[in-house]
């Protein structure tokens, strides 16, 4: 239980700092810390394969991509036309709308989750081996698996085409 609260606190705190930071590099690094905490939570949920895949794919590949883009663009610190000292809920226009929507979402989710019945503790651990996952992946879910590989190919081609310099 202690580790659940610890990892959960790190994940929530890091995510809050991600959306609160002005410097995009710090945002990316804090998000990596959040992913690390989530990986710990997956280990607690008896899913070691997903935990390691989270580190390899999310923290090790996608975030490197983000970091490269931030460094190559030399992303400037966010300059807004709003007065930053004013709380988002009080700022004029779309930002107030967005902040109100976010607060509404939080309240709604809280209400929905406390309405349900008391969920008991998890059943005894049955660690699914990676072999069982693989079997599922290649039998019941083989069509999504193949489609995903086509999706990655499309994304690769799309990224190369979109980021090309225009021939002037």
């Amino acid at each position: 239980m202690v580790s659940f609260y610890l990892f959960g606190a790190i994940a929530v705190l890091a995510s809050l700092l991600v959306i609160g930071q002005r410097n995009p590099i710090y945002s990316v690094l804090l998000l990596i810390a959040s992913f690390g905490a989530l990986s710990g939570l997956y280990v607690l949920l008896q899913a070691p394969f997903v935990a390691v895949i989270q580190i390899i794919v999310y923290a090790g590949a996608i975030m490197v991509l983000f970091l490269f883009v931030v460094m190559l663009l030399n992303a400037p610190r966010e300059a807004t036309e709003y007065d930053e000292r004013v709380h988002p809920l009080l700022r004029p226009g779309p930002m107030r709308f967005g902040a109100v929507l976010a607060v509404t979402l939080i309240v709604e989710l809280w209400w929905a989750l406390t309405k349900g019945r008391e969920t008991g503790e998890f059943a005894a651990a049955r660690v699914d081996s990676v072999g069982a996952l693989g079997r599922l992946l290649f039998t019941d879910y083989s069509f999504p698996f193949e489609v995903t590989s086509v999706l990655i190919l499309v994304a690769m081609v799309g990224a190369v085409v979109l980021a090309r310099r225009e021939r002037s």
Partner: protein
Amino acid sequence: MTGLLVAQIVLTLFVFFMLLNSAAVMVYVERKVAAMIQQRLGPYLVGPKGLLQPLADIVKLMFKEELRPGAADAFLFALAPIISAACAFAAFAVVPFGAETTLFGLLDEPLRLQVADVNVAVLVVFAVASMSVYGIVLAGWSSNSKYSLLGGLRSSAQMISYELSYGLALASVLLLGQSLSLTDIVNAQAGAWWGVLPRWFIFLQPIGFLIYLTAGVAETNRAPFDFPEAEQELVAGYHTEYSSMSFAMFFLAEYVNMVTVSAVATDLFLGGWHGPLLPESLGWIWFLIKVGAILFFYVWMRWTLPRYRYDQLMKFGWKVLLPVAVVNLLVTAAGVLYFGA
């Protein structure tokens, strides 16, 4: 505090200490072997046969002034070598280096000679390797200098490109070993065919071994793939602006990474701690011999082969090594299917 728990804590500290020592030993070995290849003497003044040279190096590095460029981002500048060194040590945590031992009957249950026995150990090594990219890219960025930034970006692009071939070579071995746990893979290599040829996976997967070693050399940024830290081209690449202990940490991270790649290669392809003549409980001696052989091969390559240019390096990684690794995986899968493992 049972005896086993105490033994595990002592083992963890022992592994950490030995990794630090291995980096120091590698400094000496590198300079001596380089000297032998280049027909000169190498360190011979400090201590008998120059054996205290690494100690002198470390003391020198400790006494140097710790500099930081004024415009550098202080937090990231300090964090980058820590990430590099921490990931290098963390990767060794799941590598087993000996059979289960009861320490000559002192313990009630056998102690695994592995800091953490995870049953997805192979993936953990891969995951920690992909995290060590951050140390380099952050070092390059936070130094706020063009040599560092170029070196950092090139080095990390190289590392993530060769990670693919690294992973595919690992996957081929997984097909043979039928498990993700390093201990199981090593134990699948016990025994010998016809009493003579050891059942190592290198004999079933020679190309896989070569791919793994090539990708490992590229991952650790060693020659001939060390363009990003080439002294002639880029001053010193991503660690140009570092001095004293931060530089020592990058150095340390590089050598410990080499040791980890060699140790994992030994476990996956060379049969880990299994070997003739010695009993199982002394298997770690065989492990050390095999790891030492691969490390010698590393040093030998550095001082023999010329350096790859960056575009040649990337072309090789994507256009040659990756297709070969994929074909190797397919052939291995076909072989396992046909011959039934």
